[in-house]
């Protein structure tokens, strides 16, 4: 079992009931290798409470065009697992923001599960999200992750049964990632997300009882986030953030524009 509280667990313990956590996803090495650390630190200053750092994979089959693009760009930029750990160590020099590595299982297997978890733990990573290693296959990494004090975070989706939600809740540590739409990642029109999400969230609330809950997939604005996270602990934005970067990069002052987008997401105004 997890010996020590991770930064993720402390974050949720210390948050007040009506406070909403904003978690931001960015692919490591996108839009370039140099900017990742600065972006993470900037996200924190501008309202993010949690960071999901994407480990780019050549064949991201649960991702839409935006994250596919970011992954491909990062791979072309020369991102590697060692560089990702370097980035985490760099962030940890000045920040205690809870940080999760998110990515597909294959690069982790190739790196070596033991070596990966050890370096992740030692560099200051708090948790892992591996979308293609569901509970069924968790034994491939769960014991080692525990050993290095990494929370494993699993997902539930609108088509998950109640029983399945309870199983995922049991296996997860830190929080449960609630996928708001059945589909790949990508920003969507607000109505599409809000439409079916209410019933889903009701089911999540009655079945996921051990862990805090964050909702993600498709959220692209403060308004979306407000509606969708009303009944849970917070929300996750990925594709919309990458779209915002893609729009401004590499124009002069692109980072400031991105940070102002982040403030708008969190506070409704820049």
């Amino acid at each position: 079992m997890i010996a020590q509280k991770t930064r993720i667990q402390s974050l949720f313990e210390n948050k007040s009931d009506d406070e909403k956590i904003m978690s931001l996803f960015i692919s490591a090495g996108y839009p370039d290798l140099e900017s990742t650390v600065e972006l993470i630190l900037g996200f924190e200053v501008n309202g993010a409470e949690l960071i999901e750092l994407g480990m780019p994979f050549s064949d991201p089959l649960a991702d839409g065009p935006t994250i596919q693009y970011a992954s491909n760009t990062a791979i072309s930029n020369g991102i590697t697992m060692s560089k990702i750990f370097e980035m985490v160590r760099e962030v940890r020099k000045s920040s205690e923001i809870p940080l999760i590595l998110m990515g597909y299982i294959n690069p982790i297997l190739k790196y070596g599960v033991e070596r990966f978890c050890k370096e992740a733990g030692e560099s200051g990573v708090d948790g892992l999200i591996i979308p293609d290693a569901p509970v069924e296959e968790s034994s491939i990494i769960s014991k080692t992750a525990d050993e290095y004090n990494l929370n494993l975070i699993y997902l539930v989706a609108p088509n998950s049964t109640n029983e399945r939600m309870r199983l995922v809740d049991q296996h997860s540590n830190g929080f449960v990632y609630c996928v708001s739409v059945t589909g790949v990642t990508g920003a969507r029109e607000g109505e599409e997300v809000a439409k079916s999400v209410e019933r889903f969230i009701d089911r999540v609330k009655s079945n996921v009882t051990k862990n805090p809950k964050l909702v993600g997939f498709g959220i692209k604005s403060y308004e979306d986030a407000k509606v969708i996270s009303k009944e849970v602990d917070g929300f996750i934005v990925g594709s919309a953030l990458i779209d915002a970067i893609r729009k401004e990069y590499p124009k002069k002052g692109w980072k400031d524009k991105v940070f102002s987008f982040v403030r708008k997401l969190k506070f409704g105004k820049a």
Partner: protein
Amino acid sequence: MKYTAPTKTGYFGEYGGKFVPEILIPAIEELEIAYEETQNDPVFQKEYHDLLQEYVGRPTKLTYANRLTEHYRRGKIYLKREDLCHTGAHKINNAIGQLLLARKMGKSRIIAETGAGQHGVATATACAKFGFDCVIYMGAEDMERQKLNVDRMQLLGAEVREVTSGSQTLKDATNEAIRDWVTNVDDTFYIIGSVVGPHPYPMMTRNFHRVIGEETKDQLKKEEGRLPNYLLACVGGGSNAIGFFYPFLEDEDVKMIGIEAAGLGADTDQTAATLTKGTRGVLHGSLSYLLQSDEGQIQLAHSISAGLDYPGIGPEHSYLYDTNRVHYFGVTDSEAMAAVKLLSIKEGIIPAIETAHALAYLDKLMPITQKDDIVVVNCSGRGDKDMKTISEWFSEQK
């Protein structure tokens, strides 16, 4: 020795499993239950086997290749004629089976990926026969080199969606099909074209193809009164090979050889020789061997044959490779093309370029056989679809 793989959780030794996003878990569980039910359902089994007989044209013939045998002057060569299946390749055995399953499960929409287009054509055919909506994902490069099959799918009423991501071949078509499935999981059934993907697909697809090996066994028994010495098949994802091998796995004296596409050579980076060159990893939902970089990024495969141009392989083949029950070798583009010509000239059969990879290995195998040895090659498909590539190849050789 009794052969029982896979386990209940979908493992062939250490390979296989269900490495899929949470959204697909309910779909896979539903599929497992539905498939299990069909196993003991005489009505389902009868309908499937009737269709194989009356629509696909099974049993396919086992042809003695006398002039090819004379050519090598050693053991006897037989061809299992999957090229005579309706639509021109073995793929339809599986497409029909999975479509019946989709119908039983109440799904209204069918999706599939295709490389050579044979699985796409087989799926489009089954959909036409049963009145299903059909979307086929195909890489842009494959649409170009297998244009005849694109036209066939469209004529059959399928929508062919061009995939321009990545290498624009089978791997990327599979990614897009999975993304479609994730998005439309409620009403959509994904008919996977080979023994790849998450459990139960590798097992299910194998079982829909095992008829190939079962017929071969019966036919050879009638013809020769005994088992073969060697079975030879090409391996992309591995469906024709496993369907052919599976009924013989417990017959320890039957040697089996799977032929991968080596492209320009297994020692180059223009290759699709997954077992020869690959390492373990997860692609498209299962753990198996695959071609990947040191960082675990999937590498682009290369083969002149669209159906073998894939950086992964079915998990059962990885298991049979590790346990040495089946031996795997690579054949290059040019060796395969020479075999296309040889079979055409010697037997009056124009094979698919995929199939020709297996045939090319006869050059290496036959010299070590005895006069009374029997070699059966699975002739997985016919070469009409490849005429453009074949003509271009031989005009460049001149």
